[in-house]
């Protein structure tokens, strides 16, 4: 199976204000197959966002290599979209213009871009809100717009940095279900030769990671975070997220992975104290 994204012994250092070098990531190697849903989990402050920024090409690694579909990455990763943890919608653009933005930037005619945007707005359940501004929407609705803004682009890789962490539990579960529905809908398109997107999903929530992903990668506590373990999630798809969390297979898996992650969380707490 081809590799959508590969990190080969990627390290990243930052200069701290007092002139010392802070090593955030230590020789991280990661290989994400095309069409896979991979979750990256680690204690807070372990450099998960740094890792994603490197995969996006927003930040160069200090050493090591990033390859996208086998090619070394230079500059921004043009095959990926990035959904940020914070609100990243342009507040001065309406929902329609925000969703259409990527297409417009790519040179699509305005009318065509807006028609496509309207279809995506309906798809994420926001029909009737196309002319609203982001400030007029709830947090969950803004996340839907951000999802549409990313998924409207025909790119193979979707990077997501704790996209739902700011939402309340129920909204969050709904958004997770909708994300899976979107992703699995691509799966159904295989017959029409539209390959499934590759998703790299960063979170600090192990439950969310297992519920969504095919593979869960555990990072160690920072500084100098490394990959501690990688677990395959052999749960059937499509998954019903409302039922999944109480199923024995899920609970067993959770216990097994948590035993590993727990050590790192304790270490990070000791480091912070």
């Amino acid at each position, binding site marked *: 199976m081809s590799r959508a994204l590969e990190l080969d012994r990627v390290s990243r250092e930052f200069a701290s204000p007092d002139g010392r070098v802070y090593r955030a990531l230590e020789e991280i190697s990661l290989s994400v197959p095309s069409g896979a849903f991979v979750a990256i989990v680690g204690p807070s402050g372990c450099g998960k966002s740094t890792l994603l920024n490197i995969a*996006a090409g*927003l930040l160069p690694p200090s050493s090591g290599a990033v390859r996208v579909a086998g090619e070394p990455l230079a500059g*921004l990763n*043009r095959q*990926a*979209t*990035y959904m*940020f943890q*914070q*609100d*990243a*919608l*342009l*507040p*001065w*653009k*309406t929902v329609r213009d925000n969703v259409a*933005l*990527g297409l417009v*930037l*790519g040179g699509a005619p305005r009318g065509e871009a807006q028609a496509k945007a309207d279809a995506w707005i309906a798809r994420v359940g926001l029909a009737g*809100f196309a002319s*609203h*501004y*982001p*400030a*007029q929407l*709830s947090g969950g*609705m803004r996340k839907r717009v951000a999802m549409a*803004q990313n998924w409207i*682009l025909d790119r193979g890789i979707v990077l997501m940095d704790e996209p739902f962490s700011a939402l309340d539990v129920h909204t969050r579960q709904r958004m997770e279900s909708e994300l899976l529905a979107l992703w699995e809908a691509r799966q159904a398109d295989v017959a029409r030769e539209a390959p499934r997107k590759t998703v790299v999903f960063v979170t600090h929530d192990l439950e969310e990671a297992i519920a969504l992903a095919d593979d869960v990668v555990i990072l160690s506590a920072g500084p100098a975070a490394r990959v501690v373990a990688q677990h395959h999630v052999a749960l059937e798809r499509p998954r019903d997220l409302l039922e999944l969390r109480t199923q024995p297979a899920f609970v067993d898996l959770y216990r097994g992975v948590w035993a590993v992650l727990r050590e790192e969380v304790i270490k990070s707490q000791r480091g912070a104290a």
Partner: protein
Amino acid sequence: MTSRPSDDRAVAAPAAAGRGAVLAWQIAVGVVVLAAWQTLVSLKILDAFFVSRPSDILQRVARWVVSGTLWGHLAVTLEESLLGLLVGAALGISLGFVLGRSAFLAQVLDPYIKMLNAVPRVVLAPLFLLWFGLGIWSKVALAVTLVFFVMFFNTFQGVRDADRVLIDNVRMLGATERQLVRHVLVPSALTWIFSSLQTSLGFAMVGAVVGEYLGATRGLGYVISQAEGTFDTTGVFAGMTVLGIVVVIVSAAVTRLERWLLRWKPE
């Protein structure tokens, strides 16, 4: 999911009632002050030669309006203010953008900009008279020196303060450097610029009137300075009254414009 408009209505009702009360009190304050002034002069506690009296001032303004002498002067002052605003904004916004994008240039020019901004504008007026003559352009130049710095500092701040996440997001969505400027940096700076429109417009009018006051043949500043030359306090106050009314009207218009331009902002 509730849409916002229904929430707005709930808030708007008490606010509207409040607005009526505010207007009533605004009128009351004006009436009380004018009545007190009029009374004190009538009782000879204040001398009308030094402070005139409201009834005389209103009569004078009315006479200007009826005879039509007011409109020519007012038009000149407004023309100078508007030109000063446009030229000052164009220069200030351009330089704000250039320095906002180049930290190096900003550091190099920083002391010079601070120095120039510290120059009291009144001392420039005679120089501008010398350079640009008695016509409107010496007043426009004075207005420009005031507007320029307000616009410059706001644009600079707006470009510098553009949200990092917005920039990253738009770059990931495929923006070129030019598209980044157009879709993120300009709107971000415009927020600051529009918010300073009120101040800029006030400064433009101050520049125009001060310029006229110090040497002109037309304009409200000229009218006031002529009246002062003959100890005609009624004329001075009448000129100030017209100026005040114009500022209130213009600033109400600017407020509406601002609200429309920044309609995407949460209240």
